[in-house]
């Protein structure tokens, strides 16, 4: 059932087994998985917006302050209506790599308290929720069909080809609206904003709810899942930290810290075989997009964060022309070559100074607005760019091409592009000193408060986060209900 709380405040039940706060991909998947696994439970999903793009006034809670050398585009990629940011998602999907989960001693604070293998079955379920036809991302199985359009790096010790897949993209609100309406033990309240938590000892007792039209209420909940997106989740947790039990994850010094986003740079160009297609291409198993990346051993040896490279053909004249690659005497293998710009999507290091804090000013719901301090420092990308010089030497040794890095003052002079992936500010860690939630996404020290959000990611490779968000949401639902994956229904 889907009800507009503003028009029907009486529809708010007095209590529920689980209250899921936030109707984006994480919240919708968590709510439906919970409801299907436990038909005896009553689940309530709170969505701050309606079912369509809200008028500007309803976006008021997203207004905040961004500080730093280059202000972060806070209003970008945050949609306050059912389906959340999936409503303008590009559909890029890729699980994080094994090495992204750590340990990586050369990267501070980059270790997950779980391994990729722990997520494997949940990635498979997430692929179904995201409507991806295949879960095969392996270079060995995908590269042969695409050999004409990718760099031949089988002999490379540094580079490999990795692959993204694509969701249609799934607009979770529209796609699963019927399921939300028809699941008997699930109630969705639209225009119902969670504005605070009430406590009973060391447990959350209830969620306080308000609409921008003045409706208000209180929902007792056996468990609460915060699934508000990578920025709003942290703001909500910070708002409730003052009343939280001492020593809990909400009291962690890491709450709000290490906000991160994938950032993009173009620090190099290369002379490589012509007609490489590092773009969306058709494969018998579906649409994929190849990218170049460092092999795990190379990341370790060169002490780099994870990153990937796309190649963009350059028609303009440059300092080294394609004709140069016609010289077999210089080690080139032959064939036409092009110049390509090398665009990097970089894993952001976990920097505690990149931080979400609360301001004294409140929004129209009475909730404190946020301030985000964020910047990309040269040290965040220098190791990655330096590793490109090693890649260049290897390209030369293999006869594949030549590579040129640009002057840092040239490629890093403006603000880097961002992925609008809001990550890391309610980190997952083994204890409350290191983070906010544990490996099962439960807030440390609070038995019935959980988080389903990319805010929990302590490290993020270069892959877009949605698939991992959904995988963790399904896993959380399984943990909360005690019902394993095989007993749950598939998305419908």
């Amino acid at each position, binding site marked *: 059932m889907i009800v507009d709380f503003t028009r029907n405040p009486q529809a708010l039940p007095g209590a529920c087994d689980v209250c899921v706060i936030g109707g984006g991909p994480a919240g919708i998947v968590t709510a439906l998985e919970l409801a299907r696994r436990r038909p005896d439970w009553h689940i309530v999903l709170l969505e701050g917006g309606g079912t369509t793009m809200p008028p500007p006034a309803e976006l008021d809670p997203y207004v905040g302050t961004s500080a730093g050398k280059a202000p972060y585009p806070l209003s970008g990629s945050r949609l306050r209506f059912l389906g959340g940011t999936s409503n303008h998602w590009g559909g890029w999907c890729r699980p994080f790599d094994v090495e992204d989960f750590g340990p990586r001693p050369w990267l501070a604070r980059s270790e997950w308290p779980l391994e990729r293998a722990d997520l494997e079955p949940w990635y498979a379920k997430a692929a179904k929720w995201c409507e991806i036809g295949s879960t095969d991302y392996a270079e060995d199985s995908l590269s042969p069909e695409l050999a004409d359009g990718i760099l031949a790096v089988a002999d490379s010790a540094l580079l490999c080809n990795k692959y993204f897949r694509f969701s249609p993209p799934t607009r979770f609100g529209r796609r699963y609206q019927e399921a939300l309406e028809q699941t008997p033990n699930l109630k969705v309240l639209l225009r119902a904003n969670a504005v605070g938590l009430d406590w009973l000892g060391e447990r959350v007792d209830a969620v306080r709810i308000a609409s921008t039209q003045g409706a208000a209420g209180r929902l007792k909940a056996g468990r609460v899942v915060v699934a508000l997106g990578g920025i709003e989740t942290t703001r909500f947790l910070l708002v409730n930290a003052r009343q939280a039990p001492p020593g809990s994850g909400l009291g962690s010094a890491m709450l709000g810290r290490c906000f991160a986003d994938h950032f993009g740079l173009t620090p190099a160009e290369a002379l490589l075989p012509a007609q490489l297609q590092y773009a969306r291409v058709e494969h018998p198993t579906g649409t994929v997009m190849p990218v170049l990346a460092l092999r795990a051993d190379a990341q370790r040896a060169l002490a780099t964060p994870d990153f990937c490279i796309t190649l963009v053909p350059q028609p303009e004249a440059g300092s080294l022309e394609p004709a140069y690659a016609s010289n077999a005497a210089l*080690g080139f293998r032959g064939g036409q070559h092009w110049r390509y710009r090398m665009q990097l999507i970089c894993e952001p290091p976990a920097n505690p100074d990149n931080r979400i804090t609360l301001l004294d000013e409140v929004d129209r719901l009475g909730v404190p607005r946020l301030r985000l301090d964020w910047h990309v420092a040269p040290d965040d990308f220098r190791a990655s760019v330096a590793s490109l010089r090693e890649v260049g030497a290897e390209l*030369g040794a293999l006869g594949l091409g030549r*590579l040129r890095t640009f002057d840092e003052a040239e490629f890093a002079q403006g603000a880097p592009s961002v992925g609008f992936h809001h990550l890391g500010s309610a980190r997952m860690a083994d204890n409350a000193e290191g983070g906010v939630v544990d490996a099962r996404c439960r807030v440390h020290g609070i038995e019935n408060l959980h988080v389903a959000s990319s805010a929990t990611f302590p490290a993020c490779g270069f892959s877009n986060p949605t698939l991992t968000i959904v995988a963790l949401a399904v896993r959380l639902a399984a943990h909360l209900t005690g019902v394993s994956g095989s007993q749950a229904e598939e998305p419908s």
Partner: protein
Amino acid sequence: MRRRGFLIGGASALLLGSGAVWLQRGAPWRGAETASAVRARLRLGDGAYAAIRALQGTDPIAGAAMAAMQGVADPAIAIENSLIERLGLARELDIAAPAFDRRLAAAIGEDFRQARLCAGSDWVLSQTECEVAALRLMVFGAQPSVTNEEGYAQGQIAEIIDWGQRETQQDTPFNVQGDGHSGIWIKTRGAPPWVRFEIGGERVGTVHTGDLITTGLYGDLQGRILSTPGAYEVALVDEMARIRQPFGVFTVRPRAARLVRADGSVSKVFCPVQGWGPSAAVAGQPANPQPNGNEAFWIQTACAPPSVRAFLGETELRTTVSLDLVTASVPRSRIARPGEWMLELRDRESGEVLQVGRYAVVAGPAAPVAEAAH
């Protein structure tokens, strides 16, 4: 066909590339010694120098090795000696060109493997590679520089299956996207991902999603095109192969006359309604039924902004705005009972309202008693 223009070597060519810059600053032999005189003092035979001379496009990288020779009495001899040693040619000075090529390629590969790189170059190059480029420049002078001219051949890049939107009216954005640009889509088969869209001779941002290309009119270009009625050729452009494929024309029609209201004021957004319907229906029986059972209205007008919505009374209708037509649908349940309502177009942005006409729902014939009893 790709066209090439040649800039002939000589004084102007010497200005190209960092190596040539070094030459201008004063190589020891420059001015005092011709290239052939330099060649005469070198040890490697004609086979090696034939191979070196055949190298293409090496001038831009010559500078790094030449710069490293600052202060060396005879850089050409120093570099040649280095090459002889690295390629193992001390006893094979008269090596044939193909064999020299193989030795050179092997030495360059080994340089890369041993991290023996050319210092001072932003390109990652082997030391041998830079040195042979410098030697070539010193012995044979600057190479003709190959430059691409701006010409594009007309040809087939991809099959165009369909595209849109193909026309609009002056000052009327269309298919407006989140950032305000007017969106154009092209369904293709076989378009390489680097192909770009061109309209009126200007290339614009192009996104490939499989066989669908999305592009449009952005920023100043949107303002310029939409403000100027005319026909704008649209094309795909492969800048790498230098091929251009025109596939149609985008038309901006002159602005239609705006509605003059009864009080003499002129609407900023609406044109007169040229026709509309249906104006009446029998209760529960749409006059213009759609497959889903809804009633559908059509309103013919030469202009209506994308932000317009149709209202039946105070009920907002699902509205579609195209160039000459606004369509809107109302659920069958809304016309289940007799009544009469004003059909209006309301523009969300300007707040202007255009009253289209009254729509009446009349009672249907009374059902026979016996039938009604069942």
